[in-house]
């Protein structure tokens, strides 16, 4: 497997603002790589550096073996891009924009174009100014997905799509992955990428804080528990002693914690013994993960003690 994107120690500043602060990012060929981070973390800036629209202040970048700043135009034949803020020419029709972008890139998969138009239920004769936000997003998506480019850079591509179209997008992305194409998919919502991505890189304040296969990320396989108990006496001690329970918070009869898969049966049994009244369980969100990372940064000693 070869590497399609590799950045090392990437730095980019805008005046006094540090947008990228030593970012390391590796995307292997054939993978859908989730690029996660809160708004303002530097995701769009990274994508623009990868396209050679912005010049990095420091560090190294290679995209498909080329330098995006120096070889931009040639490199872009092999990259399809959906910007985070889709802006299209108001007086061109959607069909014209899709054709134009693909001709400028130098390659259009006619069969896929036709099928995508149908699946996304897009009227190609409408002028771009007349499209809703969701429909403009669809135009940009069809333009990128109908290309034959081996690498796709998608910046929050599902923003503004309804759930039905979101599903069409996911199906199409799986097809592309089956063809061996590589995708860098940015998002600020964890659940959006976890079904699609093999690997993720999580960035915050211009740095990668975690990277790797989703299945290997311990905290992401946890279950977040929020329970209401009738008899909470002694629950804090019991749960704290139970294996795989973390981030415990007890407030009267309300208990919140995160539990890893191995500790789930034990934890549920303890909760049951204390008169479980209501229970909400959900997968961890990106916000949970960040809260955890913040806490680790602030109180590394105490957390290390609590989790031997």
């Amino acid at each position, binding site marked *: 497997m070869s590497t399609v994107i590799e950045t090392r120690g990437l730095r980019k500043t805008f005046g006094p603002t540090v947008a990228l602060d030593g970012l390391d990012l590796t995307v292997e060929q054939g993978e859908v790589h989730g690029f996660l981070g809160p708004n303002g973390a530097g995701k769009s800036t990274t994508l623009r550096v990868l396209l050679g*629209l*912005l*010049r990095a202040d420091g560090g190294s970048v290679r995209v498909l073996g080329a330098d995006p700043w120096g070889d931009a*135009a040639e490199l872009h034949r092999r990259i399809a891009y959906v910007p985070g803020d889709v*802006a299209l020419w108001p007086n061109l029709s959607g*069909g014209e924009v899709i054709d134009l972008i693909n001709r400028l890139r130098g390659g259009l998969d006619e069969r896929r174009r036709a099928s995508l138009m149908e699946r996304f239920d897009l009227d190609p*004769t409408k002028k771009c100014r007349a499209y809703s936000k969701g429909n403009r997003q669809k135009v940009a998506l069809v333009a990128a997905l109908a290309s034959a480019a081996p690498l796709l850079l998608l910046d929050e591509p599902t923003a503004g799509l309804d759930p039905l179209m979101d599903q069409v997008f996911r199906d199409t992305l799986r097809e592309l992955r089956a063809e061996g194409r590589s995708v860098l998919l940015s998002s600020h919502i964890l659940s959006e990428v976890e079904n699609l991505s093999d690997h993720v890189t999580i960035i915050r304040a211009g740095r990668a804080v975690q990277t790797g296969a989703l299945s290997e990320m311990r905290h992401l396989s946890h279950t977040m528990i929020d329970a209401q108990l009738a008899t909470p006496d002694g629950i804090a001690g019991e749960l704290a002693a139970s294996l795989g329970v973390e981030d415990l918070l007890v407030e009267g009869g309300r208990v919140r914690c995160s539990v890893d898969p191995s500790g789930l049966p034990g934890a549920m049994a303890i909760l049951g013994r204390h008169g479980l009244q209501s229970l909400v369980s959900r997968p961890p969100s990106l916000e949970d993960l960040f809260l955890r990372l913040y806490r680790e940064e602030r109180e590394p000693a105490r957390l290390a003690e609590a989790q031997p």
Partner: protein
Amino acid sequence: MRPYAGLGTMVRLALRRDRLLIPLWAVILSAVVAGSVAATIDLYPDLDGRRAAAMAADAAPAARFMYGPIHDPSSLGALATWKMGTMGAVFIAFLAMTVVRRHTRTDEEAGRLELVTAGLLGKRATLTAGVIVAIAAILVTSLLTAVGNTAVGLRASSSLAFGASWAAVGIFFTALTALVAQLTQSARACAGTVAAVIGASYALRGVGDVSGQGWSRALTWLSPIGWPVEVRPYAGDRWWVLLIPLALSPLLLAAAFALQDRRDLGEGIIPTRPGPERASPALSTPWGLAWRLQRSMLAGWAAAVTFLGLVLGSIVTNVDQMVTPQTREFLEKLGGTGSLLDVFLSVEFSFAALAVSAYGIAAVLRLSSEETAGHAEVVLATATARRTWYASHTLIAMAGSAALLLLMATAVSVSLGLQNGDIAGTLGTVVPAGLVQVSGAWVVGGLAAALFGAARRLGAVAWAALVLFLLIGELGDLFSLPEWVMRLSPFSHVPRAPAEAITTAPVLGLLAVGLALVALGAALFQRRDVT
């Protein structure tokens, strides 16, 4: 919901956004007028000199076309405000258009209005706020001008009439823009439509003022830019003329509000037609895209300069019948020595060069608006090289400028040739005279391109440069500016053909400077971030 809910907030928001724009316009415009009045007073201290100058100027058709007649040669104020009265009316009209459009259609297109109307905002609040702020800007500018003219020594009541004549034009174009903003769906189309009305009004007034009498005299009265001329400030102060714009403006505003009440946010009254399902083969390259984006503006300008050329060509034959020694002397000061007809043409061509430079800047700065809108990002993420994208728009701007001047000169020649029976011969002398002006326009276009290359926002500075060149050309002699300041304007180096012989050295030099500036912009753009 109450239709005007939130009006106060919207007015404050608009004033906050325009806190630089409006004071700058008001101060610069009134200062230029007061300054030129003061300079005229110094230049012609006695009545005889003033009368001679005024009569000479009034008898020159080229001058009447550009600035209108001088209704009272013995009035100091009439001579002193002669040029700026008409030019200022045009500036005021553009100020009105700029302010109203900014706060209505531009915001609506950008989706900002959606953001604020989703709050507790009445349906009429934004349009009303835009109109109020525009009228406030116009009143401040007009009042400041009236005060300035009084301060430098003109009669207060007439100065007030002068200011009021500007204010009335401004209010008329405020109301017109409010209406057009309802009709068109894009801010660009709104600006284009109102600018076309301003341009046509100016030309209509010019034709009316040159002909002096008969039915064509009525053209001045049909032109909104003609009304302030007909007020005749400092030469009778005919206040009643102001009733025309003041009666029409409420009607236009009422129509604007009626239309706004009936339409949806984001929509225009003129519906958008569906476009083609597939892109034509022409839309396959960066050049095809640039042409598609630029062609309608170029076509509009082409129609305008052709019309203007035909009109000028037909007026110019009357010139020789109006010769007086003073007129000749005055025109020679403006356009150099030579036959009166040639002098007239050279004055008009140097004026046309300024107008075409405005086209050049607008066309080059399409780069800037494409980058701001995020369209550049879409194109530059494809296999389009930066220099190709940059070249596609700049070369259309440069070639377009040349084409417009060629078109205008050809139109003048044909119109003139039809009357003197020698089209071929006329083409031979007039077309080269028009084409030398390309050199000045290219320097201005190149300047805009270089500034854009350096930074996206800097491009707009080219407009300031053009206004500076215009003021140097129009008022430099009056203010006795030092030679080196006068030479800053590229147009000061362009030969005044056909009245003077065409010298190749300055023309080639200016063309080279223009192209060098374009190349400099390309090199700078290659090195900066696309944002």
